[in-house]
């Protein structure tokens, strides 16, 4: 789908940071008072991220564990509050909203989690899992809820005769469909999908991905699709955002990114993706581990593992710059 920059984006992430702070306990505070070299531990999970998402767009958010992609998703979905910056939904800052407006915005952005077993209440029947929120929020009358749940279940490919069952009576793929049904029940415009197909078998994963694509067309949904699986993201997304250690390193339309990755990290990531077409290949891995977000490297976060790093990379943080129209990359090599 073509990007239309003139339209107002459905969601704007404006310079958002999220820090998690482990504050000192009493013993720590006393020790500090006496001059011990201990400080609060601060994890910069998300570090000044900005992003616009257009109506109807699917944005894939890719990165390895600890890069902050889930945290960013949770900030967008309103699970976490940003430490700095703000998130705008249809031009209005979510944080500043009160009362009915706040509730409206919260309903319009829904989240689908990785593990449906830990995100569904095991003691509720499926009809209550799906039907509770729309009744509470007045999306439907409690009198019509059975029909409404039935309609939603049909939409996500679940047999409505299972409405009185519990989550443990379903397979993994079906449970994920329940999670999707629950999110859809409050009629959202925007879905944050956090590794929503990662736990599923290949053949079931294809079924759920197809469901996501069908729903997008039927309901004109916008997705922020978080995944570590580049194959899935390539298939589904219009645009891909690559994160590394809390920062966005590259943003590009899907085809461009996969054909011609700009950032060295993106290049390394794409080279490591196992593909059916490459047989008995020689693996030539990126060196080193992902650094700890408690103590990130100076300058460009990727420089200790980057084969092209030079002096400037150690000192200066590269800014995310537009290198072509609609393409952004944070690398000193582009200067």
């Amino acid at each position, binding site marked *: 789908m073509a990007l239309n920059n003139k339209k107002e984006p459905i969601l704007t992430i404006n310079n958002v940071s999220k820090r998690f702070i482990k504050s000192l306990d009493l013993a720590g505070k006393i020790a500090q008072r006496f001059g011990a070299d201990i400080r609060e531990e601060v994890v910069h999970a998300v570090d000044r991220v900005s992003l616009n998402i257009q109506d109807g767009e699917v944005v894939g958010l890719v990165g390895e564990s600890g890069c902050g992609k889930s945290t960013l998703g949770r900030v967008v979905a309103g699970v976490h509050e940003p430490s700095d910056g703000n998130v705008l939904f249809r031009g209005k800052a979510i944080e500043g909203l009160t009362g009915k407006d706040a509730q409206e915005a919260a309903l319009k952005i829904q989240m689908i989690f990785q593990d449906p077993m830990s995100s569904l209440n095991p003691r509720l029947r499926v009809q209550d899992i799906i039907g509770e929120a729309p009744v509470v929020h007045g999306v439907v009358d409690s009198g019509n809820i059975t029909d409404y749940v039935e309609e939603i279940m049909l939409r996500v490919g679940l047999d409505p005769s299972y409405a009185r069952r519990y989550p443990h009576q379903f397979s993994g793929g079906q449970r994920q469909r329940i999670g999707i049904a629950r999110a859809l029940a409050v009629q959202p415009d925007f879905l944050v999908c956090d590794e929503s197909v990662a736990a599923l078998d290949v053949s079931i994963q294809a079924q759920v991905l197809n469901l996501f694509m069908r729903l997008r067309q039927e309901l004109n949904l916008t997705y922020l699709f978080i995944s570590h699986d*580049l*194959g899935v993201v390539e298939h589904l997304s219009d645009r891909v955002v690559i994160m590394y250690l809390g920062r966005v390193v590259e943003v590009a339309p899907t085809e461009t990114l996969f054909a011609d990755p700009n950032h060295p990290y993106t290049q390394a990531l794409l080279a490591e993706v196992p593909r059916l077409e490459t047989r008995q290949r020689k693996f030539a891995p990126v060196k080193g581990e992902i650094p700890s977000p408690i103590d990130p490297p100076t300058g460009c976060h990727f420089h200790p593992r980057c084969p092209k790093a030079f002096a400037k990379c150690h000192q200066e943080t590269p800014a995310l710059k537009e290198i072509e129209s609609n393409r952004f990359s944070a690398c000193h090599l582009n200067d």
Partner: protein
Amino acid sequence: MSLSESPTIEVKDLKTYFFTKGGIARAVDGVSFSVGRGKVLGLVGESGSGKTVTGFSILGLVDEPGRIVGGEILYRGENLVSASPDRMRELRGVNISMIFQDPMMTLNPVLRIDTQMIEALQAHESISKDDARQRARDVLGQVGIASPDERLRSYPHQFSGGMRQRVAIAIALLNKPDLIVADEPTTALDVTIQGQILYEVQKLCSQTGTALIWITHDLSVVAGLADDICVMYAGRIVEQGSVNSVLDKPMHPYTDGLISSVPSRNKRGVPLAQIPGMAPSLLKLPKGCSFGPRCAHFSNACDSIPDISNYENGRQIRCHNPLGAGTTLRVTD
């Protein structure tokens, strides 16, 4: 595989059943394959297909209510199914090792790495503590752990996930085994870390001649690593052959379905080819071919369980209606 050299491991018609209250679950039902020196076999299947139980059977790790009820597992000609528990203990960790998906299954959380590695060495041979430490140090270096001396004195929780898996692999390598069974060892790891582990494993097999059975659900990983592939479905191998032949010309409809449902194989934005339905419960297998109810090529013949048919280049397929059968030569034995 050259015919002159006998394979490191040969599994013949292996049957491992679980006798549960709900009935008999035939987790592994007539599985046969072999792996030669320095070769990598990819054992591919979805959850519940019996791939892990096959691995456990080779190591003699099947617990109650499971039991190997038939077949042979020949390790260098010795049948492990009838081997005594003492003999299995001798072999396990020395000649045959296993790498688990979760490295914390291998590592004891309250012991330092050096304690665990030295223990694994001293359990199998009389070796002094200093020599054992030296060997442990070398092996850690071999799997790409920087500053192994310092790392030996660490506890498992001080390592990252990728490092822990390296340590688990190092322990599997300690006694230079002839055969390693690796059960989804990189599934929980990030792409760049997975690349590093695959690199180490590949180097090891080609350098030391270790035979490797790599159990996974991910066809793409196997494509880059393995020489041969076995595809399992509901306890049986439905297709086996060389990586190139199986992935380029899948003959079993299930293999074909798996390959076409990989996202990168599909055009962007177009619905993925999908296999309808889901894998059956092992306690309630459909009559005849277990894949029948999900298969687009179902015919009346599929009401009976298909036998293995042999095709050129050692290809074996369990299907009444194999795809592209006209183009591949069938071998009668």
